């Protein structure tokens, strides 16, 4: 912001551009600016430099809500289900996440729940090999719920610490595919009551406002417990998570910052908000 003397329409328009260009979304940007306009009237916000601070604090307040950590149950295995639309980085994220646990000396089992896409199981097997996790898989085209069933049974008999279930990418608008996901979740609960303990929705940081629909519909279908925001090593800001956290209360738990096995970080709201305004 330039050092203009007062807050006028031009300053607010400049702010609107910054917010929208970071993919915070039109509705949410308007809401933030609306709040700001109220604050300008009632508080001491008379300089443009203070505006940025106000908006940053608003966003930080939303994003800093509780629940950033993975919630692990008292007894093993810790079962995590990973879902999301096509190509967002589910399988890669699972490889990275598995490594966190194997590095800590835990026995990790990966379930190749994508039985549809070409070479999906092979891709997960390579990741399993890289990070030291076993992979349970069936033939391509088989029932994904059967893979999940076998994986949980194997986890119990092998006393695995963690099970991470990969699922096929699917657009949230495809009702039959969302039903398939619900079935996989029911199967898990049947084999080990209370599972999955975490349902992680993977979102691509380059996605625009459609990420909000994705979050809404996946949450309605299977109850999302956390979000993984991938590809933050690109130039997209991923601002839409502000709306997702604000409106749906879904916490962002992890971020993906590259294609390598080490490129996974815990979500840091301060760092994220700073990058939003860079």
């Amino acid at each position: 912001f330039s050092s203009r003397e007062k807050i006028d329409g031009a300053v607010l328009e400049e702010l609107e551009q910054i917010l929208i260009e970071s993919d915070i979304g039109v509705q949410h940007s308007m809401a933030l600016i609306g709040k700001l306009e109220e604050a300008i009237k009632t508080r001491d916000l008379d300089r443009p430099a203070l505006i940025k601070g106000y908006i940053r604090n608003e966003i930080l307040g939303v994003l800093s809500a509780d629940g950033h950590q993975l919630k692990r149950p008292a007894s093993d295995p810790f079962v995590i289900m990973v879902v999301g639309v096509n190509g967002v980085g589910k399988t890669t994220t699972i490889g990275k996440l598995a490594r966190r646990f194997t590095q800590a000396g835990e026995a990790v089992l990966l379930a190749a729940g994508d039985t549809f896409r070409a070479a999906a199981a092979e891709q997960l097997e390579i990741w399993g090999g890289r990070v030291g996790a076993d992979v349970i898989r069936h033939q391509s085209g088989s029932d994904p719920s059967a893979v999940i069933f076998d994986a949980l049974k194997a986890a119990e008999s092998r006393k695995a610490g963690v099970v991470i279930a990969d699922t096929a990418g699917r657009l949230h608008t495809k009702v039959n595919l969302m039903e398939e996901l619900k079935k996989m979740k029911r199967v898990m609960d049947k084999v080990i009551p209370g599972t999955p303990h975490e349902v992680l929705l993977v979102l691509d940081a380059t996605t625009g406002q459609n990420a909000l629909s994705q979050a809404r519909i996946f949450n309605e279908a299977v109850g999302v417990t956390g979000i993984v925001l991938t590809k933050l090593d690109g130039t997209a800001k991923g601002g839409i998570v502000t709306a997702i956290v604000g409106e749906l209360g879904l916490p962002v738990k992890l971020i993906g910052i590259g294609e390598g096995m080490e490129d996974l970080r815990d979500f840091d709201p301060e760092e994220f908000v700073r990058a939003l305004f860079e």
Partner: protein
Amino acid sequence: TLTEKFNTVIRDVTGKGKLSEENIQDALKSVKMALLEADVNYKVVRDFLNRVKDRSVGEEVHRSLNPGQQFIKVVQQELTALMGGTDSKVKLASAAPTIIMMAGLQGSGKTTSVAKLARIYKNKGHRPLMVAADVYRPAAIHQLQVLGRDLGIPVYSSESQDPVAICSAAKQKAVAEGFDLVFLDTAGRLHIDDNLMHELERIKADVSPHEILFVADAMTGQDAVNIAQRFNERLEITGVILTKLDGDARGGAALSIRTVTEKPIKFVGVGEKMDQLEVFHPDRVASRILG
């Protein structure tokens, strides 16, 4: 919907001789909202609105009794014109083989689109060869081989870790064995990864593709402009494939990409199956963006 909003505008504007700047202000605001909600890039929206405004202000409306409807027509015409025509043909080279290189961000749908496109041309009687030049992603080569096996289309791959060498060898094979179309499947990469963008430049320099298709996800947000610009600057793309249009993303990225590159959107992906690649229809995508 935008149509409903415009109907309010029609009521306010009907009966006036010309569309004045004041009349248009509210109407423009509705268009701005619709485009931004469709993920069209902020600056692209601003430029588009200025164009629409220039065209509408003072536009003769006494001949048509419905200035509001005339305004809508201006918006739709401008948008459809911006989206470009149906130039969906892949430019076949005068001397075979025609080489088509796919490029784009990670996960945008390149490998799937290579197979879909090769299938279209096989069904037209051509002899396509698909080339597995992604040496980085786990099982990427395997993925293309499975698709090739399912479609009955040969896949070239090698033990080489150098995508430039792979593409070069594939071209030689195509010439030697009479394949008339070569599809290069490249690894996903960031537009800001200088090394990997340079790798694409080296492939281009070595095999001289006749088509360079930028594959982009229809749900891409504001960054679509930045991404497309970088790919175009470094490669001079010849066309765009917009994928995952079978979802409910409004697809504003299409307008952003088209505006900044001025290259035609040739195909759209409308599903995961091999028969789900269609010719791009600018009017359909335009009305989807407008909501």
